[in-house]
Every structure is written in structure tokens, then in C-alpha cells.
């Protein structure tokens, strides 16, 4: 099974973050998980770690409804990054709004739109 070294979990819901970390740990495919609580901090971390160490996450799990910069604003900022094509973003949201799902398709960086809850089974299948 493919393994992922570095994962950015961008979400401000503490309970969800805890549960995700547990599930990812149980799955055993995910090595280092970094939680970031809003879109602006996430952009800062992305740019900072890329410029300092050249490191990019293998996966980004992105929530939509967050303070400061929400998920959409994060995606808009990502569009401006030179390394955006190397990012694999999964939107993980409580939304089941078809308009948001359609909007997600407009971003080439977004691999999939996943509605919460997330299961261990899904984490095991992700590629």
C-alpha cells in the first residue's frame, strides 16, 4: 500500500482533527500529519516550508468553512503558487451542497470533494 509522508490537515474543528489523526494513525499509511486551523496560516506554512526545505505535503485535506481565510479563499491563493500543480488537495467538508461540489471541480488542484464523515475504509483506499 502506498504511503504518505507529509499530510496537511487544514481544519478548525478540534474534534474532527482529533478523530482524523486517530484514523490516520490506525490506517498506518500516513506518517506526519500537520494540523493548521485556517487557510491563511496554511498558505504561510506551505510557502514557508517549501522555500526553506523544498518540502511539499503529499496530501492536503481541506475544510471549507474556516475563519480568516476559508477553504475557497485558500484555493484561490493556491492558484498563484508556482508549485500548485504538485499539490493534491481533498476537500473534506460537512457540506452536501451541489453548488459547492460543482465549484470544487473548477480547481485543478482539487482531486476530490469528500463529504464528512470520513471512514477508515476511505483512508485505506486513497491513492
Amino acid at each position: 500500500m502506498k504511503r504518505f509522508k507529509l499530510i496537511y490537515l487544514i481544519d478548525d474543528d478540534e474534534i474532527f482533527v482529533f478523530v482524523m489523526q486517530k484514523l490516520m494513525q490506525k490506517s498506518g499509511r500516513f506518517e506526519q500529519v500537520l494540523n493548521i486551523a485556517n487557510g491563511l496560516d496554511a498558505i504561510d506554512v506551505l510557502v514557508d516550508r517549501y522555500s526553506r526545505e523544498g518540502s511539499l505535503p503529499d496530501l492536503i485535506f481541506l475544510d471549507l468553512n474556516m475563519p480568516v481565510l476559508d477553504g475557497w479563499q485558500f484555493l484561490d491563493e493556491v492558484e498563484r503558487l508556482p508549485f500548485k500543480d504538485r499539490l493534491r488537495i481533498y476537500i473534506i467538508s460537512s457540506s452536501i451542497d451541489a453548488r459547492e461540489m460543482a465549484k470544487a471541480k473548477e480547481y485543478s488542484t482539487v482531486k476530490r470533494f469528500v463529504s464528512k464523515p470520513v471512514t477508515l475504509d476511505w483512508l485505506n483506499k486513497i491513492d
Partner: protein
Amino acid sequence: MKKSKISDDLLFTQRHFDLLARLYKSSLDDYGSVADIHKAITETVAFGLDLARVSYWKILSNKLVCQTLFDASVAKHTTDKDLLASELPVYFNALKEGIAIVANDARTNEFTKELTDVYLIPRGISDMLDLPIREDGQLVGVLCCERCGVSQRWSEADLAFARAAADMMMLLLEQNRHRETQRETERLYNISKRLNEKLLDYTYIISHNIRSNTSNMSMLMDLIDDTEQYDEKLEYLKLLRDSSNKLSETIHYLNETISIQLDSKERTVRLNLKSALEKTLLGVNGIIKKEHATINISVPPEMTLKTIPSYFESIMFNLLTNAIKYRSPDRAPQIDISAKKIKGKTEILVKDNGLGIDMVRNRNKIFGMYKTFHAHPDAVGLGLFMSKNHVDALGGSIEVDSTPGKGTTFKVVL
């Protein structure tokens, strides 16, 4: 070719033809309002039949109300006093039943003699030619053609001309009613479309907020099922309880937003603005003291405002608590509240020196539901959403201007 004469009486002059042709060629779009239609028809008849006075009256249940009176002697539109139906029973009956009242010498005519003292003599009217105007077969008005001075006989052509003009008037009024119905339908359609969209958004937001808790709960239950460790189960149970509390909280907030959407029936009263603001300040006294905030109210002591007190207080309470909650870490909060009257409306400014909001990024979501702009642990994202709803319910507007790091100014117009 020799003209075949049916009757001398039935000859139209060229002027008759010209006037009617102009009327027939006109369309509803040439008239800006119902009043324009009334004016055009009364003028046409006055010129065509060479009459001193032509007027149009609306028939209400108990009286005739003059909509316009074209006075040919001065070529101007004016109006006339109401006439009471109870004093004119015979005249009214004749209008209801006939196609026209043709009164040569109106003061002796059986259908119009009731009008002699109250109407005909004071205005010097000798002959009347009155045409009922109907809407869906119901009498709604009367076009009155009146000759002053020496009495003359109305000819068949006079009647035909006046009737033609009256028919054109009925047609135009009918089209106008149709146009108004259409506009009203369009207006209502747009309102319901907008409400529907709002409702859809609202539903998605509710769904999102409930699901964010229930999905956490379902994931926690999966974790509980998947482990044999008692301590681990206990840890998840504790989080399950937290999630359940959060769900209750979410539903509690939802109830609050629903109650403002439905509860706008409260009475408006006239408030003294300054004392209303001071009363709101009492409610936030605790945090003012705690955060060492200074609040200046520069509002003229006599200024009043007609509003729903609970809404007004809630708007001001929200703006004030926000101004303090999102204070700058570098300075003590200072809030200036001022007000002025502009074009009969009250403009209230609430200016703070707090964190400010990035307007470029957040202009469109500032009053949105569950939108927050700072990483503040207590931020729910309902305050400004509720304030906007309250302002909307009061028929006012709310705007914001802000510079990050400098402060924010809210302008509420009520």
C-alpha cells in the same frame, strides 16, 4: 363620386377622423400613467366636439370622484368636487343600464335634472352627453361631455365620436390593468425567487452545521467500535459528549436565527436615540470595564428614531461587543458613536480602533451566516448576520468600512 347620404346627422368631419385616427394609432406605451390616458381622451373629445368641459369621473360605491376635467376655455386640466350618489339615483341607474345619456337641455332631461342645482346651474352647463365606462361589464366611471351656454341638440355623429373615444379609453385602461397585473406578477415572482434562494442557502447552512457535529459523532462511534481498549473507548466517549453538546448549541443558535426571521411583527415606537444607546451600553458594561474600553456617544440629546426597540438594541449590542471583542492587542478599545439625520433617515456611525477586517477578501461574506474573520475562540459567525437581518427587517441598511490594523466603522441607516 357622389357621397351616399345615410343621414346628415351621421357625418364625421375631417377633424373627427384625424382625432380618432391619432387615438387609434396610439399604444399603451405612449401613456406613462392612467392619468395620461384620462387626459388624452378628455382633450380629444373636447376638441372633436368643440365643448367647454369634458371630464372623467370614477364611480365609487357612494360617490363620483373627478379624475380630470379638461377646461377648454383655458385649455387646462383641472378637477371638480365629488358628487354624492345618494343625491342622484335616477342618473346613476341610467349610467348602469345605458350606453350613453344623451341630454339635450340637461336641466329638464329626466335622467340629468337631478344635477340642475348642485352641478349644472353653478357651472353654466346646458347639455350633457355622458358615456359610462365599464370594466369587465361593471360600471367603473363616466366620461362627461358638457356644453355650456346656448343649448344645442347632440347629433348622431357627436354620440358616435364620443362613444368611439370612450371605447378607446376602455381599451387602454384594460391594457393598462393587464400591464399592471403583469408587473405585479413579475415583482412577486422575483420576491419569491429571492426568498427561495435565501431559503436554499439557509437550508444548506443548517445542514452543514448539523452534519459537522453528527459526522464527528459517527466517526467517534466507529472508533469506539473498532477498539477493544477500555481507556481508549472512554476517551472517545468524552469527545462524543462534547460533540453532542456542540450539536445542542448549534441547534440553539439556529432557533435564534429562525426567531428573528419570523418575529418582525413587533411594534415600532419612537425612541430618544441617545438614551436608547446609553441603555444598550449598560448591557455591555461588564466587558467595557474588563477591557478598559472608552465609549464616546456624540448624539444630539433631542434626536429621536422610530424603530423596534429590541431590534435596535440588538444591532447596537452586536456592533459594540464586536468592537470590543476584536480589539487591537496594542491599544485600549475606543469606540465613537455618532448620529445625524439625512433626508429623514437616521445615520448612525459606530467607529472602533480594533483589529479591522480585510475588506478586499471579505466584502462579500461580512454579513454572511457562520462567517468569521479572526481566529477568535468565541467567534460563532452569527452576530453580523443577525444584525443585518434586524436592519433588513427595519427597512434600513448597514455598511462597513475597515482598514486592517486601524479599525472598523459600521454605518447603520434606519
